């Protein structure tokens, strides 16, 4: 209940900040919608010249892309600003203030401010997703939707844990902004079907080591009745493992942490 109240207060403060910087909000919203639109256009332009890619039709590929966008925007809306604040706080010394607060450090690293423009820009990929599902000649059951939502949540947790694990390197190397490049690579890979990895070993490496496949491919394939039990199990295991490893990495980092300021 205590943490729920904290989340409510953080949401309120973020909303008040948004009310002050309205122009920035509108511009960031436009940029996110533009990103989604141009990505979808790229897929449409490719499909002018091909019928299918690895068994994925145009509408299915767009659904995959939109799923990736949904995971991306949820992470950017809820988690990413706080992760960037975390790595900044280590180099500036303000991480000390986070340590003395009577709140879980993992909670503080992952929550704090909300980027409402990223959350609002979820509307574009969700609408396109629904339209493309309607255009497909398949029946989507309640179970498909539940599995889709469950593995979407798993994808957000997995992405959060993976990035938290990477950013825990800030305890040792201080300036780790270059690691945000891995985030962009991960999202770029998640927009593509897993069939780009023709070798099974490489494919499993991209589930368990650099988890791009569980981010969008697994939820989208479950929605489209293309999913498989091994993929689901691998995605769930990957999510749990990265969650546990990232928490352990943060705790280890804190044990070795020395303040940059007095």
């Amino acid at each position, binding site marked *: 209940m205590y943490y729920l109240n904290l989340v409510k207060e953080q949401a309120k403060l973020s909303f008040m900040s948004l009310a002050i910087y309205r122009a920035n909000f509108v511009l960031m919203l436009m940029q996110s919608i533009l990103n989604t639109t141009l990505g979808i*256009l790229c897929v449409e332009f490719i499909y*002018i010249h091909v019928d299918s890619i690895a068994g994925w039709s145009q509408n299915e590929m767009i659904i995959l892309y939109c799923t990736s966008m949904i995971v991306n925007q949820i992470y950017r809306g809820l988690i990413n600003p706080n992760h960037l604040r975390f790595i900044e706080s280590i180099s500036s010394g303000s991480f000390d203030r986070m340590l003395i607060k009577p709140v879980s450090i993992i909670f503080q690293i992952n929550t704090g401010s909300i980027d409402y423009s990223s959350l609002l820009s979820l509307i574009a990929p969700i609408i396109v997703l629904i339209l493309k599902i309607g255009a497909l000649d398949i029946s989507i059951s309640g179970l498909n939707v539940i599995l889709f939502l469950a593995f979407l949540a798993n994808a957000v947790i997995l992405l959060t844990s993976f990035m938290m694990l990477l950013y825990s390197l800030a305890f040792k190397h201080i300036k780790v902004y270059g690691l945000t490049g891995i985030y962009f690579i991960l999202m770029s890979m998640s927009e593509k079907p897993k*069939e780009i990895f023709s070798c099974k070993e490489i494919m499993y490496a991209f589930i368990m080591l650099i988890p791009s496949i569980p981010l969008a491919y697994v939820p989208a394939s479950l929605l489209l009745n293309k999913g498989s039990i091994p993929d689901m199990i691998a995605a769930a295991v990957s999510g749990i493992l990265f969650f546990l490893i990232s928490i352990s990495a943060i705790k280890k980092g804190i044990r070795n942490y020395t303040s940059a300021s007095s």
Partner: protein
Amino acid sequence: MQKYLYSFKLYLLTSFQYRFDTVLGLVMSNISIFITIVFWLLVYRSNGTGVVNGYKIADMVTFFVVSSLFRTFILIGSGFEISGMIKNGELSKVIIKPYSINMFLFWKYLSNAFYEFSKQFLFMLLVIPFFARYLTWDLTVHSAILLVICLAIGTVISHLIWMLLGMMAFWLEQAQAVMWSFAVILNFLSGMFIPLDFFPRWSVKALEMMPFAAFSYIPAKLYMNQLPFIKGANLLLVYLIWVFVLMILNMIVWRAGIKKYSAIGG
């Protein structure tokens, strides 16, 4: 001119200071290209014919490899730097100095472009022997000359476009947010994600005449010898006209912006 060449040399030397950043940047950008190439290999495997929209698999891989190399000459940094200077008042210190800020930023970010190009080129020299069968090499003397001229013009065009966008900070509080939106659009319309000839046929000719086609799409087509000499030369003339148009626009916007500009404090 000497002062600008000196700043070019100075910033080039500075680039060599941050070695870890260099390696990290090199790895990240090449992984991105690798993912794109692997995706297109999948497209070709699925298609079965070996040709998609007139591109053989080697053509497509070559396109993305060389266009990533040529994109190092897009001087995006100058726009963000001028925008930052206007926003935080640093411009006041710069405008009293005896040099052109436009020229200074051009040479500064050109040095950065040379550095990025060199490291990317060296990396590709190391990797190319392993992927030679996926690349084409059709460069002729005529195409090479046009390519070099096109790259030079494209570099100047990118600098002028980004300076124009950066000078929006004279009027907009959140210029950088608008600039990032433009960056997405420019990347899309310059053929970064897919070659421009994959766009709807009615739009291709118009897009080729746009200044941003000179960033990487046209140079890549010249490298692959897929552009007839006359057409290439005509396009270069069009881009030269764009250079003059953008220079005039830069002057007009700069004069209007400087009149509006104010900075508090010393």
